[in-house]
């Protein structure tokens, strides 16, 4: 391959400024930026839907929008945030950018497939946004049958097509990562020298390849029933609605791990760097990632404890759900132990990472309530569940995503973000997040069902707190958008390794050259070879 990398270090950004040079690029770093722009756009669209919901729920009666409109907003929020933001967030932005850099490769194994993945994502996004503009869809992101297949009068098919297509972008990226990590590691970079971020993206990719096709099939079956009236899920046609739930959660439970495993990888990178210490229990951390990925496939039925599934199936799924909590607990303990005798500094990425650990822990612990069969009977389908999974996916994954964006921003852009603004935003987000979602645990315990457009007046106070928190959270999310863009022009120029971090991605200039490395690096040390005493 011909690279123009000379001593002057022409960066990947300088390879071309035209729109065409971006839309036809095969460089994994540029594709990562394409993804970053797209998912940021979707994040704010999904966030706007959430804003309407929290405004409506600020008061008990359903008076801001109609029930039908409210239902369309929570559906749009779920569909967009799950498939167009959370699932592609860390893998497709940071993974795309960093997997080759971290393993000393020049690109991903299949650069064209990588670009195709972004185009599929965009096409899926167009279908989905089109469906929303054309009037929306009101099934909830879970598409439960027979409501979605036979009863809803909204644009179910268009959204299903959108999600179906975007699934293939996941699969393409996952195949790319798996092959790249197997075949293109630098000399000396053995499996147990890999950064945990790579382990996490590897495990995530395996889940994507195995689970996403099931989602595609399931949604296709919904479409077939809807269009041709073939009885698959609707009992009136001879189908079984629980079949849908089994198939749907077979994908959608592992999908939670697609969202959170990469976040765990990011947190591990950041915590070691700003503690100046190797991660505590590296091997256990790697095994825990694999453990979560494997057991995560066997717990889907815990979404169905009151659905009519057999009592004995419920007991198996409950037991397995407790088991999958073990590796997650190990990770929290090990991150905490990594701080012990470290040399800790509190730059913005570290604040995000510590926030991630705290919020993920809260999400995990409340998950135990939902895994406990008799408790789940009361708590399922209430705001307790909403709070729980937002602690994991927003408190966990979004915090880690933002931490990662700050941590690798100098590498991606060549500029430093303004440190105090970064810290300030991290704190605003942490406070706003807790204010938004902690009251929802109480609401759920008190019995407020999810997806309610109006609710009993006694719940006004807690809902008001939650809406107020959402306003704080919104400010926290908008801040980085401004100062990060500002830093592209006015930020201090970064050297190749502003954090004095370990890892191959810091051994190449910031921003990196087109082919990543002028010479293939040779790895001679373990991951995270930090020493708290020297620096």
């Amino acid at each position: 391959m011909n690279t123009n990398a000379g001593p002057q270090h022409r960066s990947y950004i300088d390879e071309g400024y035209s729109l065409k040079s971006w839309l036809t690029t095969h460089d994994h770093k540029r594709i990562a930026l394409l993804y970053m722009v797209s998912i940021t756009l979707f994040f704010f669209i999904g966030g706007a839907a959430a804003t309407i919901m929290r405004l409506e729920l600020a008061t008990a009666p359903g008076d801001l929008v109609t029930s039908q409109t409210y239902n369309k907003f929570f559906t749009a929020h779920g569909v967009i945030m799950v498939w167009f933001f959370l699932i592609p967030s860390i893998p497709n932005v940071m993974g795309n950018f960093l997997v080759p850099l971290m393993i000393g490769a020049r690109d991903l194994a299949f650069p064209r497939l990588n670009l195709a993945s972004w185009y599929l994502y965009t096409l899926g996004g167009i279908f989905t946004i089109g469906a929303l503009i054309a009037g929306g869809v009101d099934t909830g992101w879970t598409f439960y049958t027979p409501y979605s297949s036979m009863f809803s009068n909204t644009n179910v098919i268009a959204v299903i097509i959108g999600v179906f297509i975007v699934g293939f972008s996941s699969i393409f990226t996952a195949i790319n990562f798996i092959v790249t990590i197997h075949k293109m590691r630098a000399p000396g970079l053995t499996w147990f020298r890999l950064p945990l971020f790579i382990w996490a993206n590897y495990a995530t990719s395996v889940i994507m390849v195995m689970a996403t096709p099931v989602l595609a099939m399931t949604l296709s079956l919904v479409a077939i029933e809807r269009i041709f009236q073939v009885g698959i899920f609707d009992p009136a046609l001879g189908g079984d609605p629980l079949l849908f739930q089994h198939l749907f959660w077979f994908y959608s439970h592992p999908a939670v791990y697609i969202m959170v495993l990469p976040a765990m990888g990011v947190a591990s990178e950041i915590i070691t760097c700003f503690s100046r210490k190797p991660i505590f229990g590296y091997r256990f951390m790697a095994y825990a990632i694999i453990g979560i990925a494997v057991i995560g496939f066997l717990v889907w039925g815990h979404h169905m404890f009151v659905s009519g599934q057999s009592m004995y199936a419920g007991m198996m799924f409950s037991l397995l759900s407790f088991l999958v909590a073990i590796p997650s607990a190990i990770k929290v303990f090990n991150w905490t132990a990594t701080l012990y005798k470290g040399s800790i500094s509190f730059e913005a990425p570290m604040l995000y990472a510590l926030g991630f650990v705290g919020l993920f822990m809260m999400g995990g612990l409340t998950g135990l309530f939902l895994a406990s069969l008799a408790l789940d009977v009361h708590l399922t389908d209430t705001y307790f569940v909403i709070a729980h999974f937002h602690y994991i996916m927003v408190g966990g994954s979004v915090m880690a995503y933002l931490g990662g964006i700050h941590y690798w921003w100098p590498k991606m852009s060549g500029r430093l973000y303004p440190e105090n603004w970064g810290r300030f935003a991290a704190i605003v987000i942490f406070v706003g997040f807790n204010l938004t979602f902690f009251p929802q645990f109480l609401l759920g315990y008190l019995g407020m069902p999810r997806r309610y457009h109006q609710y009993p007046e006694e719940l006004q106070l807690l809902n008001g707190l939650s809406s107020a928190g959402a306003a704080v959270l919104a400010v926290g999310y908008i801040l980085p958008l401004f100062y990060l863009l500002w830093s592209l022009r006015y930020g201090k120029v970064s050297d190749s390794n502003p954090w004095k971090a370990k890892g191959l991605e810091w051994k190449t200039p910031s921003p990196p050259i087109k082919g990543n490395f002028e010479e293939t690096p040779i790895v001679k040390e373990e991951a995270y070879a930090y020493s708290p005493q020297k620096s």
Partner: protein
Amino acid sequence: MERFAPFLKGASSLSDSFDVLFLVLLSLCSVVAFSITFLAIFFAIKYRHSSGANRAKIRKGRAIEFAWIFVPLGLFLVIFVWAANLYIEIFAPPQEDAALKITVVGKQWMWKVQHPGGKREINELHVPRGDTVQLDMISKDVIHSFFVPAFRIKHDVLPHGSISIWFHPTETGEYYLFCAEYCGTGHSRMVGRIIVMEPSAYAQWLQE
């Protein structure tokens, strides 16, 4: 209707067992959450970059790693068995003939109830205190879910077959009945009342 207080009122034979398990797990999780938070903050301050704390000799903690695998595992198993036992109780149908059997039909967006004598009501369910009540439920259209927070019970109501749940009300009063499974436009209006009456009052009400 009941006022929502910080603690949810219980009104069935199951609510006390639920509350005990809930509080035990809550205490356990709080201890863990506070310990981890305390340790993280303590380490973060003691070993901050500028401090001169001793950082020599970091031991490899194999033993502690196994400890924090197996101690949580043991606790989890205890909670699992406890919760599963209660779940079996929730599932176990009451002694067939002893129960008062009431039919419930869920449809977009209302609850239709029929009492044994043929008396019908909509979005209200009158039951006598102290009796075991069995509900035989089916849906006319999509999936609904019958949820009474004060009784700590919930079960999906399916369109393809009747399912039964039971409860044993212990306190008279009015309690919320919610539809907990999203069922379309009027989902949040599919709300009713459970009215628990003294048996004599119930008998009289049936006659009305």
